[in-house]
């Protein structure tokens, strides 16, 4: 908290001191709308942290323009998002809106992006339809379908025949289940048990007992990030790990942000995801070290979404030579390719959605800490939620 206070003061001071200069050189304003309070607060904090880190490293000026971030907290409530986006566009005259912790928030801002011709950079929310809601939306996070289909393919090919599924009963949970099921059964697998748990469900005990009794090879799990730890603990408590039942799923459950607190119960879980803090590239090592030094915690996939989002803006501005109107920026962003801490990624010129590698990882202990260690890669995965159409 002190950290936020200090950084807020620093930002305030730096804004004041640069105030005079900014008149001369023109600014590009980015309205960053993320949840900084409430249940999704860690998403907003990671994105905000990553963007600050990026600007510290690369400076706040690009193509002769000063890039200014205006941070707004929507607490992941779509009504707030819409109001804030409108204020930012109308009053602050921002050139870009960015952030968006959850799908409803990203959707709420979409009509505004279209009307005002302001690019909307989605750095977190993961439902496929988002980018179809406005021609000005670009995504640097992921789609749930990317990881869910890949883990389905992988499981079917790697000796997992029978799977019981446990997913939270809300849109992303149902998405994950549907995409996984399609690909897993197409690959010859069988779903022996399918349980949807209520979203506000604290105790997994009865559901896990049901999983255990159905004797699957693996349990496919998708629960909101915060519940992953509880799930893994109860999974081990009930002895499912000792019965040889594996845990598989999209990687949200094993978010780097939470992983270390889950305890050894999480060991051995296999998930498919876009980013692990243990990704073995020089760029990622540098990114993780800088992030740890600045914030004393390791970055998760949300931080990477923020990092790549701001990188995309910088690169687009370089390409347009500082022209910051919506149409030129979007045109510049389409098809852009770069190396991110997560690996090589690009923006699909047709859908404006992200194309990235999806890694299969296993939770292992490295130097006394839990990490997702990548052991297989599916290269340049497009969003399967769209390619079907």
């Amino acid at each position, binding site marked *: 908290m002190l950290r936020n206070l200090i950084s807020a003061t620093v930002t305030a001071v730096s804004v004041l001191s640069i105030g005079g200069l900014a008149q001369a050189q023109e600014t590009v304003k980015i309205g960053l709308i993320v949840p900084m309070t409430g249940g*999704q607060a860690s998403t907003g904090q990671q994105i905000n942290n990553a963007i600050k880190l990026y600007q510290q490293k690369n400076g706040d000026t690009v193509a002769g323009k000063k890039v200014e971030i205006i941070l707004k907290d929507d607490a992941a409530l779509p009504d707030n998002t819409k109001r804030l986006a409108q204020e930012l566009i109308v009053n602050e005259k921002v050139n870009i809106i960015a952030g968006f912790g959850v799908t409803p928030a990203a959707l709420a801002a979409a009509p505004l992006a279209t009307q005002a011709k302001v690019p909307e950079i989605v750095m977190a929310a993961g439902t496929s339809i988002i980018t179809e809601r406005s021609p000005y939306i670009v995504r640097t996070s992921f789609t749930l379908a990317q990881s869910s289909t890949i883990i389905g393919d992988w499981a079917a090919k790697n000796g997992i025949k029978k799977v019981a599924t446990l997913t939270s009963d809300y849109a992303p949970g149902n998405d994950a289940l549907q995409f996984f099921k399609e690909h897993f059964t197409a690959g010859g697998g069988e779903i022996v048990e399918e349980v949807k748990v209520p979203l506000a469900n*604290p105790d997994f005990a009865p559901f896990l*007992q049901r999983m255990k009794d159905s004797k699957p090879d693996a349990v496919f799990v998708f629960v909101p990030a915060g519940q992953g730890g509880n799930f893994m603990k109860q999974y081990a*408590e*009930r*002895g499912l790990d000792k019965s040889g039942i594996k845990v598989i799923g999209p990687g949200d459950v094993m978010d780097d942000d*939470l992983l270390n607190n889950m305890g050894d*119960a999480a060991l051995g879980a296999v998930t498919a995801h876009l980013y692990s803090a243990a990704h073995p590239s020089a760029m990622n090592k540098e990114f993780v070290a800088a992030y740890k030094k600045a914030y004393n915690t390791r970055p998760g996939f949300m931080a990477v979404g923020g990092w790549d989002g701001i990188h995309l803006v910088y690169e687009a501005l370089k390409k347009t030579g500082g022209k910051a109107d919506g149409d030129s920026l979007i045109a510049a962003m389409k098809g852009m390719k770069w190396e991110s801490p997560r690996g090589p990624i690009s923006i699909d010129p047709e859908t404006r959605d992200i194309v990235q590698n999806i890694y299969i990882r296993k939770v292992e202990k490295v130097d006394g800490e839990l990490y997702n260690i990548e052991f297989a890669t599916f290269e340049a995965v497009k969003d399967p939620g769209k390619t079907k159409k």
Partner: protein
Amino acid sequence: MTLLTILFDGIAYGMLLFVLACGLAVTLGLMNFVNLAHGAFAMAGGYACAILVNRAGLPFFAALPIAFVVSAAIGAVLERSLYRHLYTRSHLDQVLFTIGLVFMSVTAVDYFMGSSQTFIHLPDYLQGQINLFGLGVGRYRLMIIVICGLLTVALQMILSKTRFGSRLRAAVDDPRAASGLGINVPQVFALTFAFGCGLAGMGGALGAEILGLDPYFPLKFMIYFLIVVTVGGSSSITGPFLASLLLGIGDVAGKYYVPKLGAFVIYTMMIVILIWRPNGLFGRTAAR
């Protein structure tokens, strides 16, 4: 065999609910005060335990009583400074005041501890299952049943056998006559309130492993506490105790046997019981 496992899990869950909610049964039933902020005290205990175990490295069993003391102390301070002014006010005032406290506690914990789930690092001997007569029994849940069972017996003894218990019952039945007989009624209420908060705190610490612990805990579980008290009736400890067990077992069994309807079972049971006995299982029929 599965039936027994379900029963065991249900009892553990019910016991936990009881320790969490019995403080509320006391304030609501005995003192006739609607304290929606009850869960906030449970959360305080949970976080106190988490900080002590995770950061200060205290053993879990040493941290549990401290969690009790911390929550009881917070309860006592708030009772003396805030709550006692509202005893005579209408129920609506009490509801508005305590729900305000809930929101303040949520924001305060969010500010200091962050919004993500907090886990308490348990010693190894509390993790995993042991085999009891061929039945897989979770060690942690077994411990919950033992601790909560002892607490229940102790509570019942205090209420029925000790001098303090009889003072409390007298103060509740007729505060004017009780104070006329020389019983310091406000003091009795304050002690009872603090004790109820302490129990909630201990429940919060015990429950962190099973129910999870985050700043929204008081809001998430408010409904459960209220169900326990309304279904159990609030005239004794036995009512809420049986209600907790019934709801715990019903909830777990419902989720196991009919997972599609699992979340509704507990509410359906509440509605049926309340239609059958509007004052709860052990309610006073001619209450105030």
